[in-house]
């Protein structure tokens, strides 16, 4: 369920567009924040109701974009870029390293629900490859040591 503040936020988003349905993408983004980082069908229904759209259409849009999570994800979503620039700078090895450390593979979530590990398409920080994101936070110029330290730090959170 959207909080009162989130509803207000949504109202403000809708105001920026000529029609309600035009606000679908930011509305879904907001919903994802409200629903612990992913979009359960209930969230889609809520958005659909708010924007007066058929829920099937909202689900169609949500499934079109990879950055809307359709499955429950961990508290911290580690997304390591695996596109060309990061790949030649050792991204694959970093993904393996993180996976080993957390005991999960790409696309999986730790049993305690704390971490989800994904390979991401270009994060737009190629100049400082390899890079990754945890939630909304960027980490660049990664080395095995740096990654180790970052993961250790997040484990404590």
């Amino acid at each position: 369920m959207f909080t009162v503040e989130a509803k207000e936020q949504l109202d403000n988003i809708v105001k920026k567009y000529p029609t309600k349905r035009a606000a679908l993408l930011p509305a879904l983004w907001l919903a994802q924040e409200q629903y612990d980082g992913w979009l359960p069908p209930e969230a889609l229904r809520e958005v659909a109701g708010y924007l007066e759209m058929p829920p099937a259409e909202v689900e169609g849009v949500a499934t079109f974009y990879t950055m809307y999570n359709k499955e429950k994800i961990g508290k911290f979503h580690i997304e390591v870029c695996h596109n060309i620039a990061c790949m030649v700078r050792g991204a694959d090895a970093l993904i393996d390293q993180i996976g080993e450390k957390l005991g999960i593979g790409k696309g999986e979530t730790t049993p305690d629900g704390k971490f989800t590990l994904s390979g991401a398409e270009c994060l737009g920080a190629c100049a400082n490859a390899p890079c990754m994101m945890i939630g909304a936070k960027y980490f660049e110029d990664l080395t095995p040591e740096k990654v180790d330290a970052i993961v250790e730090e997040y484990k404590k959170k």
Partner: protein
Amino acid sequence: MAETITQAPETVNLTIDGKKVTVPKGTLLITAAFQAGADVPYFCHHPRLKPAGACRMCLVRIEKMAKLQTACTVPVSEGMVVDTLSPEVKQAQQGILEFLLINHPLDCPICDRGGECPLQNMTFQYGPGVTRFIDEKRHFPKPVPLNDYVSIDRERCIQCSRCTRFQAEIAGDGALAIESRGNSAVIAPFSLDGFQSHFSGNTVELCPVGALLSRPYRFQSRPWEFHSTDSVCSMCGVGCNIAVQTRTNQLMRVNSRLNEDVNEEWTCDTGKFEQYWVNSEERITTPMIRRASVLKPCSWDEALTAVAEAFSSAAKSSSNTVAGIGSTRTSNEEAYLFQRIFRTALGSNNIDHRMHDFPIRPMETSLAAIGEAKAIVAIGFDPKQYLPVVWLRIYKAISNGNATYAHVSSVDDPAVEAALAVGEGAILLTDDHIASADLDKLTKRAKSAGAKINVLLPDNNSWGAILMGVLPDRLPSLQPVGNGARPKFEALWGGPVPDKPGLATWDILKAGAAGDIRALYVLGSNPVASFPDRDLAASALEKIPFVVVQDLFLSESAQYANVFLPASSFIEKAGTFTNIEGRVQPFGAAIRPVGDSKPDWQILSELYARLGASAPFFGPADIAREIAHSADKNTFAGDRR
């Protein structure tokens, strides 16, 4: 120089494959091409859906344009020169088909669509003949049920979006969407709901491949094996035109049939999927007579003789002691014959079909006019549930003309006032449960506002029962029994017709319960289940010494029958139904009567002969001729636009 006024041309001239055509401005190129006799192949194009350009099958060359264009998305323009036949176009068509077939399982031999499949046909006609694709095709579970009626085989889907567009643009519920993208794209309803729509079956007919499938029809027949008969839906008062498709004397499938004035090319799911009761094993197909308190099979002769004797001896003592309760589902011919038998052979006006009193009022607009209304209010009923295809007209008005629509429970709702303020172009819809006083009030308000009121009756032949005179106080064409029309019918029917109104259903049942009715004929109705006061109906049928029930199933009322006469379903006979608009529509016999059942008209005709009719009717056409001869053609005119 005199001022010249150049008016924008209403038409556009263009050349297609060397042939000059003139079409209205705004016409899509594919439509113009068909008019020019060109055979442009297509999948996603549909004249009633908005252009999508989804399948790329309709590529053509337009002179002065850099690339081939999709004929289904380009409006014609003056002087356009189009080629649909060149090797370049041919190659494009082959290429598109090769792409479409990459992921298509080509399991035509076990596909319900095989034999009537646009993809199959286009591939034969325009396809490359061989494939170069040797990799693994994409796989999905097949078929996946989406609701009680429709399932999907996603491997066969070519993503033409006809189904999603139908649901969004015509049904107005947007119940289907394309999920995911690229190679993983699938057609899906919202995951929590399934395919929730009253109109889902239309997508089965629209789907150009065997992706959307009818669940009851699955693996039942091939299209070249069944016989298709023009018919009319028996499930509600809209009277959608349907094709009844039968094989081995059974119903296989109901498809829609084009009628621009009634259902265009749609049906609701009830019409398409809920008429398999005609195949039911539970149908009674032999006459039965009660012996030692049990209904036992007997011959038709025995049954009809028992009925004839019971009714004529009761009528001889007093014609007030016989009564008939007819139905809103039998054909016009049958309804007519029923009342004629009561009025002439039994001398009684004790016939009715109504389960409650309601205002008898023809629609003030046509069904099609609802699609052009400016404001619509449905009062006291939900059209989607009750007369589903009426909803499609309402949605058309909403989507094309920006009509306002509200569905309210009372005539005093502010939405009614708001619609009336629109004045001309406002249409109020209500059903047969509206109180007469409310309707009168509403009528006054509508008249002064210039709005129209349509009282919509529920069943496939509600109007037929009324207009054929299955009413205690009305002869056919709504002529009062007491007035000047009676001599005309007496002359036609060769005998006196009682001039006093008979008993209405409720009075028949009251009289029955009081022991004043000796013989009751229940034709295709079921008062014990559908009369509002069921206890009264049950105690009446219990009390009446002789009850004959004519039906397909052993209904609640049949529990009280002394004689049960097994009737045939509407697909086993020919006749006509009159829809909510008063439109008389013929339907044909698709199969032979099941078992020893007989069409209602035939049962009545044979009974009539036993009651002393001078000349029997040999078929529905015989009866229809007499109806046409006697009908007052102005009865239904009303102030219809």
